[in-house]
């Protein structure tokens, strides 16, 4: 169970607490209503004496309708308004950064997440690495259609709407990998727009941040240089950036440290050599409707390209 009832961050914990309050109240209401319904249903056919039924109905009717329909619901709803409002006020959602939080810009694309760390000044995709135990401020928007960011173990969701910026503050109690996915229908491969939040200890996070901020290394190995040559001279660079090796383009995910990521295609495939080869040849097969075209590289060229991409650690 990795869903919202196994919360791993303060926001998700508070919302889960609210759920359990509503669950027990709701269950009690449901049981009482069903019990009150079952009583007459069991009585069923037994015919009351002439006129007696009307008398009983009139006598108990007011009690049932006013008690069950008005008084009890109003009391329960009062409790819920307060509880819901309190949790809503406690949970940081669509607020400004108080100034001391790590900021990450997340931009929705069909069908992947562009992730930008403005303070460190680099870009990655589909995997957000954060320091555990610290609130992190995510600023959201979209370049195309509406997407929705949702990592249930950490927080509720918020939409990424073009022309309309939103923010959410997430925090993970402990290091760990928390998965989520786009929750607003965004087209053909909506089902394959997965996101991972990877919470690490502060020092591990700092190290990761420093590594990611570096451009891709100067290559010395001849085979890798051949692969790089292939990459930079092909259509790959129209969409993808490898900092230090290519000019900038933000149409597709930044690949500077591609080999350090877990998956290909925003969670469509695990990042292994075999899957990567399949993805490069025919990306539409595993993720229909994504914007990457297929290629017609020969076997040797493909191996060179794979060597190069796998070197981008």
């Amino acid at each position: 169970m990795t869903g919202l009832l196994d919360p791993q961050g303060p926001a998700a914990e508070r919302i889960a607490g609210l759920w359990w309050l509503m669950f027990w109240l709701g269950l009690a209401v449901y049981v009482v209503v069903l019990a009150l319904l079952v009583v007459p249903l069991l009585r069923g056919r037994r015919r009351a004496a002439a006129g007696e039924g009307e008398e009983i109905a009139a006598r108990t009717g007011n009690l049932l309708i006013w008690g069950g329909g008005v008084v009890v619901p109003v009391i329960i709803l009062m409790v819920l308004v307060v509880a819901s409002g309190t949790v809503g006020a406690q949970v940081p959602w669509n607020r400004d950064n108080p100034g001391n939080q790590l900021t990450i810009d997340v931009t929705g694309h069909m069908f992947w997440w562009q992730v930008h760390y403005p303070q460190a000044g680099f870009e990655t995709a589909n995997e957000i690495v954060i320091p555990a135990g610290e609130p992190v401020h995510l600023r959201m928007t979209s370049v195309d259609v509406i997407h929705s960011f949702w990592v249930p173990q950490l927080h509720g969701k918020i939409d990424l709407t073009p022309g309309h910026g939103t923010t959410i503050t997430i925090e993970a109690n402990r290091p760990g990998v928390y998965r989520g996915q786009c929750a607003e229908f965004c087209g053909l491969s909506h089902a394959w727009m997965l996101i991972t939040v990877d919470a690490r200890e502060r020092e591990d996070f700092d190290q990761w941040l420093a590594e990611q901020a570096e451009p891709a290394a100067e290559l010395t190995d001849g085979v890798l240089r051949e692969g790089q040559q292939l990459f930079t001279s092909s259509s790959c660079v129209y969409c993808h950036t490898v900092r230090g090796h290519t000019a900038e383009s933000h149409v597709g995910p930044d690949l500077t440290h591609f080999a350090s990521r877990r998956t290909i295609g925003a969670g469509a495939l695990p990042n292994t050599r075999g899957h990567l080869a399949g993805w490069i040849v025919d990306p539409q097969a595993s993720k229909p409707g994504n914007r990457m075209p297929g290629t017609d590289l020969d076997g040797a060229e493909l191996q060179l390209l794979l060597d190069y991409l796998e070197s981008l650690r």
Partner: protein
Amino acid sequence: MSEVPPQGVVRDETPDQDMLTRSWARHPGVLGWLGQCNHKAVGKRFVVTAFVFFLIGGILALLMRVQLGVPEAGFLGPEAYNAAFTMHGSIMMFLFAVPILEGLAIYFVPLMVGARDMPMPRLNAFGYWAYLFGGLFLLSSALVGAVPDRGWFAYVPLTGPEFSPGDNMDFWLLGVTFVEISGIVAAIEIIVLIARFRAPGMSLSRMPIFAWTALVTSLMILFAFPPLVAGSVMLELDRKIGTAFYDPALGGNPLLWQHVFWYFGHPEVYIQLLPGVGIVATAIETATKRSLVGRTLAIASIVAIGILSFGLWVHHMFAAGLPTLGMSFFTAASFMITVPTGVLIFSFIATLWPGGFRWTPALLWSMGFVVIFVLGGITGVMVASVPFNWQIHDTFFVVGHFHYVLIGGVVFPIFAALHHWLPKLTGWAFSRSLAVWSFWLTFIGFNVTFFPHHQLGFMGMPRRVYTYPEQFGWGPLNLLSTVGAFVTALGVLLFVVSVAMAAVRREPAGDDPWGGGTLEWATTSPPPGYNFATIPAVRSATPLWDTADPSYRSGEPWQDEYENPDELVRVGLATTGLDAIPEQVVVLPGHSLWPLLLALFIAVALFGLLIDSGLIMVLGVLACVASGIGWLWPGRKP
């Protein structure tokens, strides 16, 4: 005109049944069949057409359940799956639920209030043809492989010109708008009918609950449907001529569509629910032979729900990033609607409380309504909480929630209504054991299908995904849900079998098989063209349970014109709005092909718009104008 009810004046003539029958008979031949405008023909067409759409929507649901039954299934690709969920939602919301309820209202409310027909029979017929052609327009997208696939909610910018360049969305926007117009037409009919055509003595306070719900929902339709029509026109303009109502790059706003859509979309849910409540109330009153306990309070609750339902729409947008303070008002309004709903449920329980009722099939389905709908209502309170909504919005929890509300609150009452009223409508008796079997299969199948959806939502499964990876662990519950869907389908199939068997056997149902208290049971099954030969007199909410003579006698000459027309003319009676005092005898049209032609030419004009053919569009519009002139041309004096 005299006050109600002057008794004791005995007229010396009995109604001329033969003349009435001939006056209300339909014209011969195919054209005569097509040109029928009587409320019973129109209502029956609505019900049958909507049920066919229900079966189509249900088959789409089964296809989706097969695809989701196992992880990474290849049964439907994403194109087909997206088209299936879009058309499932659109068909069920636009082509099934509202039209079948309107059809039941068009057939039965005139009977319940003691009228002979709708006040504007040709407009009524036009409403049906607009619905049929709008529905066929939407479905015809399948013939050219351009089935709408952007969801029944059609969020921009995904549905805008940039991201949906094909004809798919045009089919959706034009077809749905056409159907909405039909809904508005039917709503106007029902409002005028109830305001002016109630039998003498049927003051508003004596009106049957189902008629009350028909009145309230019709008023809601008048306020809820035009915004969607306007929103759809704006989107179509964005798509066709490059306006930018919703394009953020040019200063438009995608959130505007969401506001407009849900300003329609949330009342829409209650537009479907309230007639369901009216049906359940009718079934309970009939089974217990008792007027609803707390009847006045129940009617007030129905009106309150109608008003409050317009204050909830933002709870579909809690994740959009709107200001939190504003959203909390919508939480409060969403919570508030629980109170009138609770009053209704407890009014049902209180009516049943003393026991001593008959287990009619309609009561069985109505109890299914209570058991399922109350659970959906409770999860509805939960999703109205803003922070909880951030978690479960657009997940399978919500899919579970609204199927409990819509199947429990709408489909179960519709089946209750069909079991209650089909004997009246067809004149046939239906098998009781098939009704019971069909109920239990549907009830159990439904719960097996949709209860696990709540859990899937908690496990993180979003809506509208065509598949999911195995390692997420959503497989077993999805498989269970798929099995449940087929059990539900079997239950629905048994109902179809039951109708087919009744049609073959043609065993007469009798005029009043359930001992009902409202006027539709005072006439034959099926009712004659003129519904009632004499004018019913109403002295309570359940006139058939009164012991007094049910016939109204004015002792004035106009009544003779009503009961013994001396030429072939359809005569109805208009009464005053509040107290239903007879005001005038009105002549009603009987046969007309103009409504059919007008609807057909509107469809032609829309087709021209769809394929960007100005010529076809202009010809269609000109033909519409011509049909309008033909419709309004003064005929021979009847």
